[in-house]
């Protein structure tokens, strides 16, 4: 993002986590409340990024392993004559999906709780910041009038 910009910038989705990273603008006259908000957002972003990157990579890896083991059991090569990767159809993959979901259930429950908590906190802080800014603006207006 350009140096003179006074707003946050959001980027393309991350390759592993599919989340979009945000670069936060730090205003020179940032109040403690605003700093708390920014730090909360940065921390949330980091947590989410860590979780999803790891989760998605695990998924991909386990999927590969599953396909490999199933193909081996069937006696099929990983790649056929044209060099294309052999895949299993949806019905065969269904077992994997079911398994993966139940294995990660606990992990998701924990993440859900954290996500909801973080989401509410950040939104509440945003509300506070917006309110403070609005009051400040009103006071400034009154002073000027």
């Amino acid at each position, binding site marked *: 993002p350009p140096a003179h*910009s006074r707003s946050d910038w959001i980027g393309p989705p991350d390759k592993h986590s599919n989340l979009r990273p945000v670069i936060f603008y730090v205003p020179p006259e940032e109040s403690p409340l605003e700093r708390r908000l920014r730090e909360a957002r940065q921390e949330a972003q980091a947590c989410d990024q860590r979780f999803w990157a790891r989760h998605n990579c695990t998924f991909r890896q386990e999927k590969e392993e599953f396909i490999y083991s199933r193909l081996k059991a069937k006696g099929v090569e990983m790649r056929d004559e044209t060099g294309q990767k052999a895949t299993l159809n949806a019905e065969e993959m269904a077992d994997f999906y079911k398994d993966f979901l139940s294995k990660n259930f606990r992990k998701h429950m924990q993440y859900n709780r954290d996500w909801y908590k973080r*989401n509410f906190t950040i939104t509440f802080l945003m509300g506070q910041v917006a309110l403070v800014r609005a009051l400040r603006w009103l006071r400034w207006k009154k002073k000027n009038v």
Partner: protein
Amino acid sequence: GLFVWHLKNTGIRQIPCQFVHLCHVANNRLITFQYFNFLKRMYVTQYNKDLSQRAKPKSDSVASPFRELQQFDQEKKVIHKIRPISPVHQPLSETSSRNELREMKSAAETEDSVTPVRAESKDDRQWKEMKLRLDDLPGILARLSKIKLTALVVSTASAGFAMAPVPFDLTCFLLASLGTGLASCAANSINQFFEVPFDSNMNRTKNRPLVRGQISPLLAVCFAASCGVPGIALLTLGVNPLTGALGAFNIFLYTCCYTPMKRMSIANTWVGAVVGAIPPIMGWTAATGSLDAGALLLGGILYSWQFPHFNALSWGLREDYSRGGYCMMSVTHPGLCRRVALRHCLALIGLSAVAPVLDITTWTFPIVSLPINLYISYLGFQFYRDADRSSSRKLFFCSLWHLPMLLLVMFTCKKSFLEKEDKGDLLGGNHGRAMEITLP
């Protein structure tokens, strides 16, 4: 043209309707015909588009059900494609009832078709300033509130209103529709607010406004509040308190029960089906002010319909659900998924037969609707037996036209209010069956 079509229709079915009744029906339909015509076309076309996309064999279940149509020219282009399709698609009901809040989540949303995705992905790879531009705001809010799904929800509520055995009151109808629409916008916005990281990870939903940072979560919540509060107030004060209460309850059910439950237990599907069943009940209570058996029947029909619709759809999304951590029957209990879909297809037959017993429609309704109900049950049975992608797709597409047709037939077979007044004197017993919660 509309009137002529209706006459032709009734000619085939030989429903003995009075001329007055026909005029009444035609008038009602005119109000919503154009609009729903448009919506249904859009809806059906996007589905057909998706059908052609998924013809590719090896693609890794990037099965994306439908989301909002983003480009109007896309729709126009595709509309040409479906014209050659049989006139089965033509009978458009004013209900186009794929409106349930749930179905939007999964099905009703048209997917980002390939071309817009390619155009957007170039855009996507750039860094964007997180500054809200006022001219972008309407589009952003439309996507936040899932406006097309909201429109379909409102249509379902209108169907409930239309089926109520009272004289048609335009003001009440408009207020109820507006209130329902606002409530739906609020609920959808909160749903998106809760699901940002999960939406980012699923193909179908990764272009939502909050995911892309086009709007801040605070603004999303404020928007939801500014839609929800006036919406429910409008329903409570402008229509009647019962409808308002149902609307508020539905918002609560959708945002605080269904949305979190999606990640906790497969029971979310049943809750979501209730969410979808409530709008027609709201329409009915808006018209009559009381919760009769008729309202519950209409709700029941929509409730049952959700299952073949959603279960068939979710069959193709198993990978995304699994990775995203969503607990859906199609992933964890595939046998149950198919059984439930079939069970509810059959339930639709039963419910259609109950309608004349409750004096909502004439006996022609179960007879005329039997073919379509049997057909969807047949597809449900095929899905149950084969459990593969093609049978799930067939069932899903059938559910898309099945519901509007069913509601349309129901409306044409609606028992005339005048008839009922006469009958009421003779069959006073019928009213005893209705659960009347009348309000002062």
